[in-house]
Structure formats: structure tokens, C-alpha cells
């Protein structure tokens, strides 16, 4: 297995607060990598550092050996890193189908004029965009509501649409920020299967933040535990579960 994504002594300070402090870990190609930790542990900040939405204070991020730190979010996305957001950031005023079409931006080329004149290549491209958007909608089971505005979807459907939108980038890695939030236990079960299925189908590497420990333990190949911005441990679920620092962090936080 090869290393796909690598964080080296990553730091982010907000004023005096060390939201992420000297975090080092590696993500292997094809794995489902869980990120857990109590509230405020810095999990989402870490995601934001990885996708360029928050600049790092120090440290380096590498993707296939290329340095990501310092790149703007769209350049990072263009390298094949897709994400979802903890508080769902769909394009609410656009239809479900358009939400997915938007994300195919990096895999398409047509410009202002070729779009206007409808050149043959732009028409071929547009057809491909359309087909893929329908395909992804079908994958998350929303194809019968393609024309509806994203804002009108239920919470769970919005989460699924957001995953489909991230997949439209043709990513190599997807970062899912609390994908199971607000779901009941049978939906959570379904989500686990879904994440495995997309991993296999699109040959993805998946990073996910999740609070629901059983789900993470079942789903993830490896887990990293953060507490107060610091990485406590990284390892397979069984090891992590036995780690005393982890137990303390969770019990201490209660």
C-alpha cells in the first residue's frame, strides 16, 4: 500500500488557541480513515487545513508527494480531493442536478465562448456532464427529485446529495465531515454500506469525521484520535479502543 496523503507536524493557531497542534499522520491509498475525538478537538479544523479553507500556521501536507499547503481550496480540489461539510454547504438555490453539475467543473474545460456558441466539443462535454450528474443522483437515490432545489431536501437527503456532489469531482480522496449526523441507526447502517460501496466502485480513499463510535469502529480501517488539537493515537480500531489515553480523553470529556 502506498501513502496517499501525509500530514507532517501540522499546526493551526487561532489567537492563543492551538486548534491543531503538531499533528502528523499518513493516509494509505484505498483505506477508510476515521477521525474521532471529543467536541472541539480540532477535527473539522484539520479537514479545513487539508482542503485549504483555513491556512496552516505551520507544518506540511503532502498528497502523492506534492505539497498542498499554501494552495487555495480550488487548486486542492482540482487534484482530486473532495469534501462535505459538517453544517452542509450545498448550493441551496440550485437544483439537485445542478449541484452535481457544478462540481464537474475541474474535469471539464468549456469556456465562456465555446459554451455560448455550443461548439461540438462543448456539446459533447455538456452531455457527459449531464449523464454523470444523473448517474450520481441515481447512486444516492435522488434521481426522481433532480429538478428540486437543494434547500427543499430533508437533512438526510441533503447529506446524501452533498456526498454525490463531492463524488462529481472525480476525487481520489473524499473527506466526509460527520456524514451520519442526524441519522437513525438503520440509516447509519445503510451509510456504512454506502461508503464502502463508493470506496470500491470509485477506488476512493475516504477520510471521515464521526461521533458515533460504533459506526467508526465498524467502518474504518484505521482511526486517528484527536484531543485538544493533538493527535493521541493512530491505529486499527481494536488497538485504538484499548488505548488508555483515548479512554481517558473520552471519559474525561464527559
Amino acid at each position, binding site marked *: 500500500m502506498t501513502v496517499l496523503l501525509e500530514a507532517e507536524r501540522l499546526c493551526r493557531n*487561532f489567537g492563543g488557541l492551538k486548534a491543531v497542534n503538531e499533528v502528523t499522520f499518513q493516509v494509505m491509498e484505498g483505506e477508510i480513515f476515521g477521525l474521532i475525538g471529543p467536541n472541539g478537538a480540532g477535527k*473539522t479544523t484539520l479537514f*479545513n487545513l487539508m482542503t485549504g*479553507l*483555513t491556512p496552516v500556521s505551520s507544518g506540511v501536507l503532502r498528497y502523492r508527494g506534492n505539497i498542498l499547503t499554501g494552495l487555495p481550496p480550488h487548486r486542492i480540489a482540482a487534484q482530486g480531493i473532495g469534501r462535505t*461539510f459538517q453544517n452542509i454547504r450545498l448550493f441551496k438555490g440550485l437544483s439537485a442536478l445542478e449541484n452535481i453539475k457544478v462540481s464537474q467543473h475541474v474535469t471539464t474545460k468549456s469556456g465562456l465562448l465555446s459554451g455560448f456558441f455550443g461548439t461540438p466539443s462543448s456539446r459533447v462535454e455538456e452531455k457527459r456532464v449531464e449523464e454523470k450528474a444523473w448517474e450520481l443522483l441515481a447512486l444516492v437515490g435522488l434521481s426522481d427529485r433532480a429538478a428540486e432545489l437543494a434547500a427543499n431536501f430533508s437533512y438526510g437527503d441533503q447529506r446524501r446529495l452533498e456526498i454525490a456532489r463531492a463524488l462529481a469531482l472525480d476525487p481520489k480522496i473524499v473527506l466526509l465531515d460527520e456524514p451520519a449526523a442526524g441519522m437513525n441507526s438503520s440509516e447509519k447502517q445503510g451509510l456504512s454500506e454506502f461508503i464502502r460501496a463508493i470506496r470500491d466502485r470509485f477506488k476512493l480513499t475516504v477520510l471521515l469525521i464521526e461521533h458515533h463510535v460504533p459506526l467508526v469502529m465498524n467502518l474504518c480501517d484505521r482511526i486517528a484520535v484527536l484531543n485538544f488539537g493533538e493527535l493521541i493515537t493512530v491505529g486499527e480500531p481494536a488497538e485504538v479502543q484499548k488505548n488508555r489515553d483515548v479512554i481517558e480523553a473520552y471519559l474525561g470529556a464527559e
Partner: protein
Amino acid sequence: MDAVQFLQNFLNGISIGSVYAIFALGYTLVFSILGIINFAHGAIFTLGAYLTYSLAVGQFGIGGLLADLQLPFQFSFTISLFIGAILSGMAGVLVERCAFRPLRTRGADPLLALVSSLGVALVTVNLLQYLVGSEIYSFPSDVYGDIRPAFLLHIGEKLVVVRTVQIIIFAVSMVVLALLGYLIGWTRIGKALRAVAENASTASLLGINVDRFILYTFFLSGFLGGMAGSLVGTSFGIAGPYFGVSYGLKGLAVIVMGGLGSIPGAVLGGMVIGLAEAFVPSEYSAYKEAVAFAFLFAVLLIRPQGLLGSSQIQKV
């Protein structure tokens, strides 16, 4: 430029700069609380000048529908200025009720608040024009009573002229700034205002009536705008109901310069632009009106957060 000329320009600059400062503070207060620019602020500036004029002179302008009406009373300039500013503050409150609150309660797009406040500005200005006409006029020279119109400073052969109005403008502005600083920095109202500016929803959880403090803010903003308009009006005359527009736009340059939402920034920005305008050489005086906007561009290029603003961390 010799030292005397420098002194003259400097005095002119800090006088007008101090008005820019209190005017721009009106924008800043609203911006720091709502994150929106109140485009009716320039109209309040105009309104303030007309109100003060009417109270001090006893008549409503010169033309328009009210041309022949006389007020049954006349106040001294100081009192007129104060009442004019209070009334402008009330107009500010009215602007909030008409143009901002209906949109806020619905959680509407902030762009719409720009349009609705522009609409209120348009109504205010044109209503003024309808009522008092579009003539240009100035405060009578005896409006301050017996004080001599100017003080002359002899420096060697040269002469520095300080108009009384300039001193009054500077003094009033400084008093207003000091009071405002005290209000915001040291009183309970000020603390609550700062809490609302920091985070409105947290403030409301803490039991602060956010809507009421937004009204206070608009009152203060209108008060400052009306005061600034009156001061400029006494110094340069009232150039018709549209005379607030250019000051309104200039005020925007001032707040960008100082840093959007920064209170000390608005004061510094006002002073810098006032001084910069004063130091424009007389052969380029036609371009004086563009100075503030040139500064705005320079700031956007070099230091977008403004002189005293801090770069904000986007919340994801």
C-alpha cells in the same frame, strides 16, 4: 510649500477630517452590528443640515412647498445643532424600522437591505426637495452670535487664517467623539452594543434585547450623520438636497480606509482623508473630490483590511 502654508493646510485638514470622522462613525456603528452598509446615511446627513438650519434660522429653506412658512421660534445655534442631531437620530431609527427590520426578520439577502436603504435615501432626499426646494443657501453669518468670523495668526510676514466655523467644527467633533468613546467603552449600553456586534445570537441568549440595541445603534448613527451634515452645512452652505450624496460616498471611502467596522479606524480614516484633501495643491483642486476614492483603491490594493482593521478568519 513653506511651514506656514503647511500649518494652514493642516488646520483645514483636521477640521474637515474631524467631520468626516464623526460622519463615517455612523456608517461604522451600523456596519459593526449588522454587517450592512446603510446607504441612507448620506440622506440623514442632508436632513440634519436642513433641520439645524430650520431651527436656527426659523424658516424652512427657501423654495419648495414650505417656502412661505416661518417657524414660530428660533434657537441658538448650539441648541439647534443638538436638536437637529437628535431629530436625525430619530430619522435613523425610522430608517431602521422601514428599510432594515422587515428584511432582517425574514432573514433576507443583505443586498436587498442596500436597495431598501437606497430607496429610503431617495425618498428622503426628494421629499426634502419637494418641501424646501433645491436652492443652494448658507447659514447667516451671525448664526454663532457675536463671535468674530475668523482668527488671524501672524507668523512673520505670513498669515494663517482660521475660520471660527473650523474651530467650532473641530471642537464639536472632538466632544462628540469623546462622548461616543465613553459611551461605547465605559457604559453598560456600550458593553451590550459591543456584545451584539461581536455575536448577535449569543448576545440575545445572554438576555440582551438585540432589536432594541440595533435601534440604539441607528439612533447614534443618525445622530452622528445629522451632526456632521449640520457642521458641514454651516461651514460650506447647504448645496441643495443632494449635497449629502457626495459626502455619503466619501464616507464609504473613509470606513474602508480605516477598516470596515473599526471605530478607531473610522476616526483615523476621516482624519487622513481630510488632511489629504487639504494638501491637494491648488492647481489640482478640481481633483480634490477624487482623493478619497483614490485612497480607497490604494487601500484595497495594499491593505484590504484597512489601516486599523484585522483580517478576519472565515468561519467554515
